[in-house]
């Protein structure tokens, strides 16, 4: 008896020895794993911070824009024609610049002088007079947009240490700008154009509204189609479909579709929607249809998962008190599964919002100035606008690109926050 206990004790001590020997190693492994995980998180945060700061640093200046005051003389004899649009508006603008800087005489210098303001100044003036014809005969002061090069110079984005011939802003122009600034005829204002106009080849006129509206219409079509179809498909597959080889095949296919590169959907959309159905190219309708195909698998998978997470006891109880299968699903199961389905839908939508590749095939990567008014007007979407601006030669488009990315990010953060909010709000704990 006593020898047995002794034996046991000896064994215990041995085990204890083995454990305590390995203990240090185990603690160390744990520490290493923890610190690896921690540094992974740190690294991710560092990347995100770097990305955001570089985008914000490049883009914040796009939200302001330089304007120059011109006092224009609108003598009645310049508007002989009945049609106001026939008047020589560029000429009036040039005259007023000439008056402000009478010392500028040579042809080259004049060209430099006119380059201070945007080509759009004449159109601004025309619009103003068309709205208020009583201005004719007066000498109003109007604020016009500065040229993009001037804007870049004022924002300090042009390297002024290089030789004059290599800069897009010459020394003379700098002098004139200084003079304007002293006279209070140069100011920097919030860039409303950026939020109220469509695309343009002049950076100072380019805006995001056209693309934002295009994105909105496209997403509306996508949501209107993919949400009902996706939810119906998920309900049928999860609650009603018999378990046989066919439903297995469908399930595998849906899971596969979720992993198909998005450009394939673009090709499919080109072949079916545009070439076969005759849906007009480059429209939110065509884009929405293609993105529906892309988001459907995401919504179906998320929908099925949330239906699956509703405990069977709910179904059994409903069936037990005499509800039909349809009543059980629509009165009891679906309301409980809805938060999960909504989350899945919003994530699918956020994915669709950032998509460009499939839209390439259906002509949404295009230069479109007019702001779309319906789903059948040609339009582009936010990420496509970013892509187009990133590829434009003018320096000022760099900051527009970053600003557009900021707008897109704001949209995405808003949508994802909505998904989190919905989940938290409707979440039911068992």
């Amino acid at each position, binding site marked *: 008896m006593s020898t047995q206990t002794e034996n046991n004790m000896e064994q215990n001590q041995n085990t204890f020895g083995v454990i305590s020997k390995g203990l240090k190693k185990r603690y160390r492994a744990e520490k290493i794993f923890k610190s690896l995980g921690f540094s992974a998180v740190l690294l991710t945060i560092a990347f995100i911070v770097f990305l955001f700061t570089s985008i914000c640093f490049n883009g914040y200046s796009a939200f302001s824009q330089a304007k120059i005051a011109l006092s224009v003389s609108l003598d009645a004899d310049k508007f002989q024609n009945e049609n106001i649009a026939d008047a020589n508006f560029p000429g009036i603008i040039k005259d007023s610049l000439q008056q402000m800087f009478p010392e500028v005489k040579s042809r080259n210098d004049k060209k430099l002088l006119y380059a201070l303001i945007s080509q759009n100044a004449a159109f601004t003036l025309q619009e103003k007079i068309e709205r208020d014809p009583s201005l004719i005969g007066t000498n109003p002061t109007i604020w016009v947009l500065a040229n993009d090069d001037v804007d870049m110079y004022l924002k300090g984005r042009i390297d002024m240490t290089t030789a004059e011939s290599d800069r897009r802003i010459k020394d003379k122009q700098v002098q004139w700008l200084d003079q304007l600034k002293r006279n209070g005829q140069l100011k920097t204002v919030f860039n409303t154009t950026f939020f109220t106009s469509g695309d343009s080849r002049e950076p100072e006129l380019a805006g995001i509204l056209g693309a934002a509206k295009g994105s909105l219409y496209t997403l509306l079509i996508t949501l209107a189609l993919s949400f009902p179809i996706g939810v119906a498909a998920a309900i049928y597959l999860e609650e009603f479909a018999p378990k046989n080889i066919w439903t297995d095949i469908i399930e595998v296919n849906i899971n596969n579709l979720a992993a198909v590169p998005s450009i394939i959907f673009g090709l499919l959309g080109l072949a079916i929607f545009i070439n076969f159905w005759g849906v*007009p190219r480059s429209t939110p309708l065509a884009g929405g249809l293609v993105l529906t195909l892309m988001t459907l698998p995401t919504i179906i998978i998320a929908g099925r998962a949330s239906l699956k997470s509703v405990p069977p006891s709910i179904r059994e109880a409903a069936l037990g008190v005499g509800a039909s299968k349809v009543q059980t699903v*629509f009165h009891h199961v679906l309301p409980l599964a809805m938060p999960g389905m909504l989350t899945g839908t919003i994530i699918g939508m956020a994915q669709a919002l950032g998509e460009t590749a499939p839209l390439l095939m259906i*002509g949404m990567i295009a*230069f*479109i100035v007019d702001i779309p008014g319906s789903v059948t007007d040609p339009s582009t979407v936010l990420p496509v606008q970013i892509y187009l601006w990133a*590829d434009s*030669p003018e320096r000022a488009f760099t900051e527009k690109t970053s600003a557009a990315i900021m707008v897109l990010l704001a949209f995405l953060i808003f949508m994802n926050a909505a998904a989190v909010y919905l989940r938290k709000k409707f979440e039911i704990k068992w």
Partner: protein
Amino acid sequence: MKKKMLIAGAITLSVFGTTVAQAARDYIEIVGSSTVYPFATVVAEQFGKSTSYKTPKIESTGSGGGFKLFCGGVGVEYPDITNASRAIKKSEIERCAAAGVKDIVEVKIGYDGIVLATSKAKPALQLSEKDIFMALAKEVPTADGNLIANPYKTWKDVNPALPNTKIEVLGPPPTSGTRDAFVELAMEGGAKKFDSLAELKKADEKAFVKVAHTLREDGAYIEAGENDNLIVQKLQANPDAVGIFGFSFLDQNSDIVQGSFINGQEPTFDAIADGSYPVSRPLFFYVKKAHVDVIPGMKEYLGEFTSEKSWGPEGYLADKGMIPMPDAERKEYAATVKSLKTL
């Protein structure tokens, strides 16, 4: 719930029903070259602002992709105009004709120079076409005329007068029209300088083109994608690298990058315009004559593009970096547009 879904489905379906029959289009549809895109868009914007017509829609599909869409057929669902950074090929004319697009008007609009640019931190490179070929071809001829894999590592290996820096060239991918023009003009020009290759050209044109058009794949030539702004930024970061892109990007970024001299010529506006800079190519657009009277504003758009205030030497396209044609050529093509003379 299900009823609501059914109704929603019915509504969306009926929406399709009405839009499937595409009504007459009231805006011009333009496709084609990404090189012409920055110029065509300026004209389109000007046209949209100064007339009562809608602003044309312009897709950047590349020259080849543009012809494919353009030659799809006649009717509002096909584009009216395609831009191209090269002339239409015979095969493309045939494809067009097969689809019923028989009357095509060719309009040359100006020239674009291709530059080999470097950062301003170093002096500009003095290259010849032969240097470019030796630096970038996959296979180069030896003294006795045999082809060997390109052994040159530095610019000094290519030409002792050049600096002793690694050959590192950032350029467009094969889908780009800029790349087509670069290999055709610069690489072929350089290849012809070798006697053995000049003989090969006479004997076997195809084999010659293969040698002249194949860029090396050992890392000295880096495909930098279609985004030329990115190349400019990379040049700024790496003063030893050379970038290949269109003149308009050099023009817009002349405070950061400089064009290398080719055969002693600097890529300037004037040198490209008078043809003394060797690597430049014509730009075109092609008009479907059958659409001119169908789509509103076609004639006016063509008029805007071919007016002196847009494509003239003082026009706004020149401000954007397009090299205008000489006076006689401009006159000729303006007349072509007026009379809509077909190919």
